[in-house]
């Protein structure tokens, strides 16, 4: 019997300080015919506000976080650590999406609990392909724990 995969969080939280890369990601999603809502945080601080609920508001429960590593302020490495140390947040798949292909970054982010590590594809077509595959895996294939998953509980 197929597990019930229907109502799951489909929002993508994109943590990216570069407006060009944000635009490229949004365009790539459109080109891939993906209608997932994308919430854009320009820093680690903004991302944590979204995930914990801003000013007592509802916390965002994204289906995945796409996290850039090199950002000013709270960078991707620190943001990842905070997310994975927080029992309320650590179930959220965090995919590192960065220009860095440095082995040390790969090692340290997996150590810190990253769920996947993608070096930003060199070409725009490569980015489209990467997003399609990420969606296919995290939104259509992988099962996530139900606790903490607000959308799933309502079903």
């Amino acid at each position, binding site marked *: 019997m197929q597990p019930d995969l229907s109502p799951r969080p489909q929002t993508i939280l994109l943590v990216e300080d*570069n407006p*060009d*890369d944000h*635009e*490229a990601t949004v*365009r790539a999603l459109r080109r891939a015919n993906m209608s997932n809502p994308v919430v854009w945080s320009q820093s680690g601080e903004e991302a944590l506000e979204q995930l914990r609920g801003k000013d007592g508001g509802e916390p965002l429960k994204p289906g995945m976080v796409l996290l850039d590593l*090199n950002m000013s302020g709270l960078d991707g490495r620190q943001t990842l650590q905070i997310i994975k140390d927080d029992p309320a947040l650590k179930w959220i798949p965090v995919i590192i999406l960065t*220009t*860095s*292909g*440095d*082995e040390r970054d790969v090692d340290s982010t997996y150590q810190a609990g990253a769920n996947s590590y993608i070096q*930003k594809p*060199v*070409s*725009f077509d490569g980015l489209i392909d990467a997003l399609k595959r990420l969606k296919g895996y995290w939104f259509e294939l992988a099962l996530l724990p139900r606790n903490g998953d607000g959308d799933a509980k309502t079903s």
Partner: protein
Amino acid sequence: MDTIAPVTEPPITRLSQPTAYLAAIVDSSDDAIISKNLNGIITSWNRAAQRIFGYTADEAVGQSILMIIPPERQAEEADIIARLKAGQRVDHFETVRVAKDGRRVNLSVTISPIRDDRGVIIGASKVARDITAQKEAEERLLAYTRELERSNQELDDFAYIASHDLKEPLRGLHNHATFLIEDYQGVMDEDGVRRLKRLSELTQRMEVLINDLLYFSRLGRADLAFQETDLNTVVADIGHLMEGYLRERNARIEVPKPLPVITCDRTRITEAFRNLITNAAKYNDKAERVIEIGFLEHAQRPEGPEQNVFYVRDNGVGIDPKFHKDIFRIFRRLKQPAGEEAGTGVGLTFVKKIVERHGGRIWVDSVPGDGTTFYFTLPERSIPDAA
């Protein structure tokens, strides 16, 4: 038995000649040779001692040895005397002494007890070598090493900065060229679109080159993770991973004899083999492409004989000898075979770096039209018998 010397020969003659002889040796020595009694009073002082410490024998004999010991090291003397009294030698003890003009001298000192006829320790002989120049050389070397470490760190930092700060604007260029093509397709003429596509390709190519350069710089500095590695498994794994690539080119890997188990950085060595296998399958126009991988206990390199040599041999197009040096240089590419995607020309550069990091050498032997053999050694760790 005629061991008894004639009584006519006075014993003084027999003694004085060797004594003068020994005195001459002591005097011509390059090392300071000093004797002292157990109270630390200097009893003899050779010419080298005068040269090193600046005091003449007249000035030194009768004085305390403490006069050449710097204030902060005076305690050493009591320790030395205690050891001498116990009949012990002090061997190649590195210390600092002070010369007449206050100059500090680095010395390597050997001190041995002197006994009288009855075997009682009555003093000490001290042979001291001036190692100031040696010490200075050591310190210079240490300074160079620190400088090298610092500049390596800077190179590492630079590589890291390059990875982010140089690539970010490049990605921007690529993205904007792509957006222009998407958004203004109907507005621009064909030539405009063609040029934008070219711009987009060039930025991509530059990013690939930067990534390769970064990887190359890391290959040169990251520590190797040595582990016992069965090269038969390594080659078999590459064969599985490259199955599609090899099948498309009708290429097959042959290992005539089992390869050895060696201690190496498995990931890197796998990469070296993978690059060589890729090349062997790629630069090949035969209907059946054969890649032979083997191990030789002896092989001849143009520069001389080598032991424990690995080789990857193909029956491909071969490489003109005039390119044999060039092919290992980064971003140098040979003419791409028809139907093959152009690489960046880093594969062999990576292989060379990996081999050299293991302390080995790589060379090529090739006859154009007849195939190519890449040879390399991995001598850093012992290579036991074939598995």
